[in-house]
C-alpha cells in the first residue's frame, strides 16, 4: 500500500507535533531515581499546586463522577461573568484554553486562509492553522517582542485570525496598553484578534483587552486555570468575546467538553484570593532572584512578566540534557527556533536554588 500521507491533508505532513514538557515520571524512570527527587520547571505550572479550596471541591465532586457534567458550565460562567464584569453569554469554557484555540480554528479557518502571529509565539497557533489547512504568517520579532505594527502590515485579504499571546510564552514579554490600542484601531473589522492571556493573573499592571469585547469588536480573550490556579491537570480554560462570536464558537464545542471535577475546582479556586496572592508573591520573588542569578552568571535573559524566564545558554538542547542528568527538567526551545535558549519556569525558592546550582555546575563544566 502507498503511504498514508498520500491520503492525509498535505499541510499535516510537515507539522511538528507538540512536544510537551518532559514528564517527571518518565525522567525518573530514565534516571533510575524516585519521582520525588525530580524538579520540573518545564511547563509553567504552579509549584504550589491548586488552592486547598479547589482540592476540597474536587473531593466533594468525586461522588458525581458518574454523572455527565453541565456542558455549558452554568455556575462557573456565572461566577466568571461577575468577576469580569460581563454577562454569561460572553463566555465559553474549554478543556484547557487550548481547546478554545481549536474552536477558533473550526469557526474561522479553511484551506487557503491566513493566520498571523509572531515569530517565537506560543506554538499552538501554528498547529491549529495547519490542522485547518491555513497558512501561518510569522511576523519577525528580532528583540523577542511582538511587533504589532508589523502584524498590521502583514494582514492580507485572506487573514482571518491574529493570535497575540500576552504575555507571550516562551519569551515572557508583554505588549502594553498603548501599543494594543493603536493596533486594534488599525485591524480591519473582519479579522478576529485573539489575545491569549494565560499568564494574565501574574501581571502587575495588565492591559485591558476586555474593553474591546465590551465595545463589540471581533476580539476574543483567552484565559486558563492551568497557570496561577494550579489546575493544569484538570484541563479547564475559558474564552471571552461578544455574544455573537461566542455563539459561533459554541457550535464547535462538544456538549460535555469540560469535566465535572474541573468545573468544581475552578469555581472554588476562583474564590480563593489568598492562594492567588501567594502564588504571585513567590513567582515575583523567584523570578527576580533567577534573573539576578543569570545576570551574575553573565547570561543573557529576557526580562519576564510571567512565571518563567527565557535565558540564553549557548546550546539549549545540550544544557537541557545536562540539567536532566541532575534531575532538573527545563524546556529546550528548538521548536520555537530559539536553539540557544532554555525556558525555566519559576518554582519554589528551594527549587529555584537547586536549578541555579545545577546550571552553574553544568555551565562551569563546559569546555571553552
Amino acid at each position, binding site marked *: 500500500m502507498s503511504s498514508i500521507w498520500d491520503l492525509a491533508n498535505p499541510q499535516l505532513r510537515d507539522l511538528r507535533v*507538540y512536544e510537551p514538557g518532559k514528564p517527571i515520571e518518565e525522567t525518573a524512570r530514565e534516571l533510575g531515581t524516585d519521582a520525588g527527587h525530580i524538579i520540573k520547571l518545564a511547563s509553567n505550572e504552579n509549584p504550589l499546586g491548586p488552592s486547598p479550596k479547589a482540592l476540597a471541591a474536587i473531593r466533594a465532586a468525586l461522588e458525581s463522577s*458518574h454523572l455527565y457534567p453541565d456542558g455549558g458550565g452554568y455556575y462557573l460562567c456565572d461566577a466568571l461573568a461577575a468577576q469580569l464584569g460581563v454577562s454569561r453569554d460572553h463566555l465559553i469554557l474549554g478543556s484547557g484554553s487550548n481547546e478554545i484555540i481549536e474552536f477558533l480554528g473550526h469557526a474561522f479557518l479553511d484551506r487557503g486562509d491566513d493566520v498571523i502571529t509572531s515569530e517565537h509565539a506560543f506554538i499552538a497557533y501554528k498547529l491549529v492553522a495547519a490542522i485547518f489547512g491555513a497558512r501561518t504568517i510569522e511576523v519577525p520579532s528580532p528583540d523577542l517582542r511582538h511587533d504589532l505594527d508589523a502584524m498590521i502590515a502583514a494582514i492580507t485579504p485572506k487573514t482571518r485570525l491574529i493570535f497575540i499571546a500576552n504575555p507571550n510564552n516562551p519569551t515572557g514579554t508583554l505588549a502594553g496598553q498603548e501599543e494594543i490600542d493603536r493596533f486594534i484601531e488599525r485591524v480591519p473589522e473582519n479579522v478576529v484578534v485573539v489575545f491569549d492571556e494565560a499568564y494574565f*493573573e501574574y501581571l502587575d499592571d495588565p492591559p485591558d483587552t476586555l474593553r474591546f469585547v465590551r465595545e463589540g469588536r471581533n476580539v476574543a480573550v483567552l484565559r486558563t486555570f492551568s497557570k496561577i490556579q494550579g489546575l493544569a491537570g484538570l484541563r479547564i480554560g475559558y474564552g471571552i468575546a461578544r455574544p455573537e462570536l461566542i455563539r459561533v464558537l459554541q457550535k464547535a464545542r462538544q456538549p460535555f467538553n469540560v469535566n465535572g471535577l474541573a468545573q468544581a475546582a475552578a469555581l472554588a479556586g476562583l474564590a480563593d484570593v489568598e492562594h492567588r496572592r501567594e502564588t504571585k508573591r513567590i513567582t515575583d520573588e523567584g523570578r527576580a532572584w533567577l534573573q539576578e542569578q543569570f545576570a551574575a552568571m553573565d547570561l543573557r535573559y529576557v526580562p519576564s512578566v510571567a512565571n518563567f524566564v527565557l535565558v540564553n545558554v549557548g546550546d539549549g538542547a545540550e544544557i537541557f540534557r545536562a540539567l536532566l542528568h541532575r534531575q532538573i527538567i527545563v524546556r529546550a526551545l528548538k521548536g520555537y527556533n530559539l536553539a540557544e535558549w532554555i525556558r525555566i519556569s519559576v518554582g519554589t525558592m528551594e527549587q529555584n536554588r537547586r536549578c541555579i546550582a545545577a546550571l552553574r555546575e553544568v555551565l562551569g563544566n563546559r569546555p571553552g
Partner: protein
Amino acid sequence: MNTISISRRQFARLLGAGAAVAAVRPALSLAVTPPTTPVTPPAAGATVVRLSSNENPYGPSTKALKSMTDAFGIACRYPDAQAEALVEALAKLNGVSGDQILLGDGSSEILKLCAVTFTGAMTNEKPAGRGNLVAADPTFEAILAYAKVRGAETVKVPLNASFGHDLAKMGAAAKEGLVYICNPNNPTASITPKNELRDFIEKTPRETMILVDEAYFHYADSADYESVIPLIKDHPNLLVARTFSKIFGMAGLRCGYCVAQKETIERMRPHQMWDSVNVMALVAAKSNLEDPDQLANGRRWNSEARSFVIGELDKMGHKQIPSQANFIMFDLKRPVVPVIKALKERNVQVGRLFPALPNHMRLTIGKKAEMEAFLAAFRQVMA
C-alpha cells in the same frame, strides 16, 4: 482582576452597535449549538431520579476513587505521563500496540475527530477529509453534528425491522466518508448481528471508513454480538470507539478512546490538541481497568434492575425492544413527549424524544429504588 461592570443599558447599546461579522465558515452556521443551560435544579427537598443519560448509578470502582485523591499532588501538572500509562494499559487489554490507541475527552471527542478527519464536502481536493457521513435512524446523533460542522453531507438510514443497522442500505449510501455504526445502538439498546457486521466490514471499499461505537459493549451478552476490535488488523478503514462513561461509571470525568490501525490513528492525531484528557480521568480509568469487580458488578446489577423493570412493564403491556445495554426502549403506545413532561414534573427524568420512534420511551436502568420511583410516577402518569 478586572471588575469594571457596565449598566444594562450601556450593554444593550454596545451589543446594538452591530460589529461586522467576521467570515464564519458557512458550514458552521448550520451546526446545532450544544445546550448551555444546566440541569433544572429539583424543587426544594426533592431528589431527582435521573434516568435520562445512560449513566452508571454505581459510579467508578473504589480503587478509581482512591487513585484520584492520590493524584491531588499532581493536579497542577500537565498529565502527559498518566496519558501514556493509560494508553499502555489499553493497548495490553485490547491486544494491540500503543500507537493504535487514541485517547479522547470522552468518546465524544473520538466521534468528533473521526468526523473531522474522515468527512467533508465532496468538493474538497482528494487528500482532504471528504465524503459523507452515513448513520442509522434513530442512533446516537452527536457525530452528525460534527460532520455538518465540516461541511459534509449526512445521510440517515432507518434501522431494519429487528432494530439492527440496515447495513446494505448504509453501504449503498456511502460516498467515501464514514459509516457510523452504534452497536449496541443508542437509543434502541438493540444490536446488529455479528455475522452481518463482519460481512459488511469485509465488503466495504477502503476509501469508506467504518466507525463502530461500542460504548455499551460491556453490557451486551447475546451470542449474536461481538466486538469488532479483532478485525482491525485486517482493515485499515475500521475504527472502534469505547468509553469510560458507561460501565466504568465515569461520565463526569470524560475519557474515551479509539482503536484502529496505526496509520489510521496517525491521520487523526494531528487534528487533536494535546492534553485533552484530564489527570483524574486518566488515573481513574487505569485503576478501573485493574478492578475486575467493576465489570462483574456492573453487569449483574444492571441485569437485575433491568429484569425487574421489564417485568413490571410487561405486566402493564408495554413491549420493549430486547435490550443489550444499560437502558431500555419500550413502546408507550402513545406519544412520548407529554409523558416525558409529566414525569419531569414528578422529578423523574427519562430519555428525550427520538423522532423516528415517537411512541417509544428510552429509560436508563438505575438502581432498583430508582426504578421503583420511576414505576410509581409512571403508573400515575399513565393512569
